């Protein structure tokens, strides 16, 4: 539970103080009130139990994502690190599809 999982911000809802964040193609809604700097689409954040705890530099995110990517691809369901990564992603609810995505889906 000390693990944070990086994801990329695709949209920010300023009113609700949440961001839609992409984790391996899965879009989740992450709360922003713990993060100490504003985030914008394209930024990477570290998600812990459904909260962005830090905005992180893209090179850090990409490096960590590559490792996790390998783990998720190679490891079985019993693997502890993989379980931790999955539960960190499960901690955030699915993001409501944006109007644009709904439009794309209907095409």
């Amino acid at each position, binding site marked *: 539970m000390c*693990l944070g999982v990086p994801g990329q911000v695709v949209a920010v809802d300023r009113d609700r103080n949440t961001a839609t964040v992409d984790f391996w193609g899965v879009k989740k809604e992450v709360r922003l009130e713990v993060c100490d700097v504003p985030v914008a689409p394209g930024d990477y954040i570290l998600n812990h139990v459904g909260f962005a705890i830090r905005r992180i530099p893209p*090179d850090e995110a990409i490096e960590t994502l590559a490792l996790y990517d390998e783990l998720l691809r190679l490891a079985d369901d019993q693997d502890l*690190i993989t379980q931790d990564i999955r539960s960190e992603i499960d*901690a955030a609810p699915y993001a409501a599809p944006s109007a644009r995505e709904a439009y794309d889906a209907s095409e």
Partner: protein
Amino acid sequence: MLPNDALAQLKFRDPVRARALRDALERLVSRADHAPVSVMHVCGSHEQAIAKFGLRAAFPADLRVIMGPGCPVCVTDVPEVDEAVALAKQGVRIASYGDMLRVPGTSQSLADAKADGAHVDVVYSVTQAVDLARDTDEELVFFASGFETTAVATAAVLVDDPPDNFSVLSAHKYIPPVMEIVAEMPETKIEGFLAAGHAATITGSAVFEKFVERHRLPVVVAGFEPLDVLAGLVRLLELINAGEAKVENAYPRCVTREGNAHAQELLWRVFRPTGGRWRGIAHVPNGNLRLRDEFARYDTRKRFTIDASALWSYAPPKLVQQCQCGDIMAGIASPSDCSLFGKECTPDTPVGACMVSAEGTCRIWHQYGGHPDLSSMKRGVA
């Protein structure tokens, strides 16, 4: 000797750098004026990386890298579990992180209570617990575990006007004070600490400065990738050899000296540190995080009269008395020193908390092996 072979198998994306770091470790340990050199990390995710990637097999023989009390679920003390179990058996609905369900209390765990008909929900986040409370009129207690990183999330929810039927039974813990306790234990002979990178994104590396001053032991903040762990250890060994007691940040990509000040403000607005027992370790002054009086109406302990005495009339299971979790978390024993490990005590039938949690030393060693059999890695296990 297996190191070079082993490292090649480790799925490092940069085996050359890994080998260079490994060689540096070997050199530093051989130059130390004593042997073995013992260092401690305090994070389940560090142990997962060390065990999964077989790092311990690649460490120099005279380097002991010990996992300390780095598993928040494991150090949740028996009376804290009893409080949750007693409430559940009183008919109060409980939500908690999954690992907490099987942590043994005096005579029962939350999972036992659930099997007896109590209403216990597993959640992945405190937000999900609040959502459960919003969907019902009944009382919903969130049995909260985790170190400061996770406590910040609980704090954020409590300042966000949760529903009246929501309350928090806090078993949150604060890591810096327990490092003081372990550093003072004469049996452990710890010469330096590796601190957890993601927790330090919030607290900042400065949180360890007072510790270093008081104990004259170096602390290096390190990330979780195998190369980060190796690089952190190299820096720590350099400081130990030079006799330099200071805090170093070997994870500057994510961690600053000050940390996330906003998150710290949130944490301390909601929680106050107070002394309490950590399972198997000791009484830890300022090691427990409890709700401040301003948040009393969300404090389960203020809201309910919790009577756990009924749980004490049963004798604890016999095997528990042989469990060595406490010594293992204090760095005095290894899982393989315990006669129950892998026999009576397995992930399916855990006797102690260290076998329950995915961050527990015993659970991790059982999964990956403490000194993994590297022949299995050659068969392509990640």
